[in-house]
């Protein structure tokens, strides 16, 4: 007979066995037995957030930057509902989270008890899986399974709802990690990649005169090895490559074969190349609507190949000619070894074949679609990001963002050369993500520079987490591109709603410098381009949390931009062009 442990002890035993370092949480009545047990487990550090959404995003930041699952602990009712946004965010971007929530005692479930809510019901559509544990004898098994589900195949969030009485009850702790026998988001659905299929792909690559790699977050999720292999493959082939927002950093942003990000605010060359290519090799991306634009006219003349670990991603939005259900690193390993053995000096031999394609791409590049008119009197937001990049690129810098124009400018102008350095809410587009995420990133990477490139509206949504940063001495830098507007909303209103700036101006903004001081950290304000460098350097040099209030041009728009309902080759490049374009059909924008 094994020694019996309380439910709360079992929770910590499982966390220890899964080498959990940090738990991001917030206490309450229904999780008190677990909090009571915390003191007995020194290897696990609890990070007290100021709101459960903050705890969730912090866990995401930790997971996104380290590749390890983030662990969240919340109480029942409002604790659980507050964490839902973070779970949905992690679900959309395939981030592994294990969320433990307290629940009212079993006998009270369904009685509208104090702080009761149907947590598994509410979170079912935004988790990979969830469990209500009604018997302490099942607890250990479910905890192990939860970690496995969260991290295997296509990663994602899971939730375990534990009633208070189950936390007290005694049950066995089993260590044998249950293996899931069924197809788990692709982990078991993985196919054995046949040489025949690989050869088919290699044949397509050899025939193509206008190829492109289109890569996404799947490469980052697959781990650092996948990024390395991707670099090797791109070098071996000489093909151009573009990346989604989520995939930035998997391939070096400063490499000459990289065309920049694609999609709604992607570069002219990337989007045009996607439109005109004859072979598109999608590795770990999901043909999201922000990428494809008008589906009927998406890359009309190309053969499409899709590599994804999740079988339900294949054929969902776009029909493809060849597909592989596989983890990226396994796929790339097979492809590269076969490619190398059969095609010596491919780049040289194939040069003639794709020379014209590169010429065309270089013509598109000449448009300089990320260009902007700089100013001497007012800080242009793009310039601010460029300066931040130049002054931090030689350090190991981790960037998080909020959601809006600043997020797109960060993606366009900050160049990432390594994976896991760029943490942004892509799928759900959650304002308030960046600040708490930075906390999680900083915990995973002590001593490294972590900057949240923020908008003043977004950052106010989770500003309370500054207090968390202070408490744990996490020197995160909140770099606010302050335009006093919900800039992205204002931009759409300008272009599509006859400049009716309905509720997109934030009156009564706080004084961010004083706010920083009130939290006990450092506030810096930059108002002129001439002082920007010096102030950024000051920010970097301070080993405490900083809120940097960068006052930028209030009316700047983010270009280029593909109005939705438009194909890739019809972008708006800048303010001169948009007048004529947008007054025509370009007004339908998602």
């Amino acid at each position, binding site marked *: 007979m094994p020694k019996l442990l309380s439910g709360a002890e079992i929770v910590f035993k499982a966390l220890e066995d899964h080498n959990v370092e940090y738990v991001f949480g917030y206490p309450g009545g229904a999780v008190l037995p677990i909090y009571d047990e915390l003191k007995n487990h020194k290897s696990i550090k609890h990070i007290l957030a100021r709101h459960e959404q903050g705890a969730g995003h912090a866990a995401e930041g930790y997971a996104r930057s380290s590749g390890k699952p983030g662990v969240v602990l919340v109480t029942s009712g409002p604790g659980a509902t507050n964490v839902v946004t973070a779970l949905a965010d992690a679900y959309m971007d395939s981030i592994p989270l294990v969320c433990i929530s307290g629940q009212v005692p079993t006998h009270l479930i369904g009685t509208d008890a104090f702080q009761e809510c149907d947590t598994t019901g509410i979170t079912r559509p935004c988790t990979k899986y969830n469990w209500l544990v*009604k018997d302490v004898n099942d607890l250990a098994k479910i905890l192990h399974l939860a970690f496995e589900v969260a991290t295997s195949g296509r990663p994602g969030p899971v939730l375990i709802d534990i009633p208070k009485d189950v936390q007290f009850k005694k049950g066995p702790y089993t260590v044998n990690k249950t293996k899931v026998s069924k197809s788990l*988001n692709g982990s078991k659905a993985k196919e054995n990649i046949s040489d025949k299929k690989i050869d088919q792909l290699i044949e397509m690559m050899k025939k193509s005169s206008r190829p492109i790699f289109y890569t996404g977050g799947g490469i980052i999720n697959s781990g650092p090895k996948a990024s390395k292999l991707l670099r090797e493959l791109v070098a071996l082939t000489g093909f151009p490559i573009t990346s989604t927002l989520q995939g930035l950093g998997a391939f070096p942003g400063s490499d000459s074969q990289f065309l920049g990000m694609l999609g709604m605010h992607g570069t002219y060359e990337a989007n045009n190349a996607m439109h005109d290519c004859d072979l598109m090799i999608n590795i770990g991306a999901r043909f999201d609507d922000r990428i494809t634009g008008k589906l009927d006219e998406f890359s009309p003349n190309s053969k499409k190949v899709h590599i994804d670990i*999740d079988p*339900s991603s294949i054929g969902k939005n776009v029909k493809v000619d060849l597909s592989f259900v596989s983890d990226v690193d396994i796929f790339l390993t097979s492809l590269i070894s076969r490619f190398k053995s059969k095609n010596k000096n491919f780049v040289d031999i194939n040069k003639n074949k794709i020379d014209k394609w590169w010429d065309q791409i270089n013509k598109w590049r000449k448009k300089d679609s990320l260009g902007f008119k700089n100013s001497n009197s007012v800080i242009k937001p793009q310039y601010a990001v460029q300066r931040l990049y130049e002054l931090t690129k030689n350090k190991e810098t981790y960037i998080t963002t909020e959601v809006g124009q600043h997020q797109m400018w960060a993606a366009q102008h900050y160049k990432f050369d390594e994976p896991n350095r760029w943490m942004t809410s892509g799928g759900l587009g959650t304002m308030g993500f960046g600040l708490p995420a930075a906390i999680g990133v900083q915990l995973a990477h002590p001593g490294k520079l972590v900057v949240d490139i923020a908008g003043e509206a977004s950052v106010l949504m989770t500003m309370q987490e500054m207090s968390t940063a202070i408490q744990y001495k996490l020197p995160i830098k909140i770099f606010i591109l302050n335009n006093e507007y919900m800039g992205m909303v204002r931009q759409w209103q300008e272009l599509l709603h006859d400049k009716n700036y309905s509720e997109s101006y934030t009156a009564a903004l706080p004084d961010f410098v004083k706010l920083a001081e009130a939290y006990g950290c450092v506030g810096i304000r930059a108002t002129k381009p001439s002082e920007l460098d010096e102030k950024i350097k000051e920010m970097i040099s301070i080993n405490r949390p900083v809120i940097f209030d960068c006052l930028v041009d209030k009316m700047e728009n983010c270009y280029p931009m593909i109005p*939705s309902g438009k194909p890739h080759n019809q972008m708006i490049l800048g303010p001169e062009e948009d007048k004529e374009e947008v007054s025509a059909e370009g007004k*339908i*924008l998602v």
Partner: protein
Amino acid sequence: MPKSKSAYSEPSKVSKPEHHIIVVWVDNEAGVLARVIGLFSGRGYNIESLAVAEVDKQKHLSRITIVSVGTPEVIQQIKLQLGKQICVHKVALFKRSDENILFRELALIKINSSKKNQEKVKKACKKYNSVILDKSKNSFVIQVTALRREIDKLVQTIRPYGLISISRTGAVAMTRGPEVFK
């Protein structure tokens, strides 16, 4: 209201919605049905019928048969999503027109009417394996098994003859021949 210039994308070509039968083998656990059904409701799809029961007591396996109307793309997506759930063992997807699949639905029908009308009902039900389950002076309960559309038609025919209540199971499905779906 003036026509808005904003703010949604137009759907591209949409295929025609069709009837699909989805059979799902699941662990018989709390919440599993909600999980399966949620994939339909979350996409705004209506379920025409649903039949669930445990089919293997030892392994706690239930078999769910769902009839739904949707575009082939969305139904295919639901099938793949179902396949990823850890509570799901296997998923089969059939078109209603598939010759290789047997479909049956059971209905209980209560009639309260004159002897003459009762006879008419019994006659109409005869070709659907009818069984009388209960009888009283003016009423009876009759059981029929047939295809869904046959029962639809039958109900239309007998409604004027004193039909006062009807209960239907929804379709269940099975492949013909010795094979089972893997």
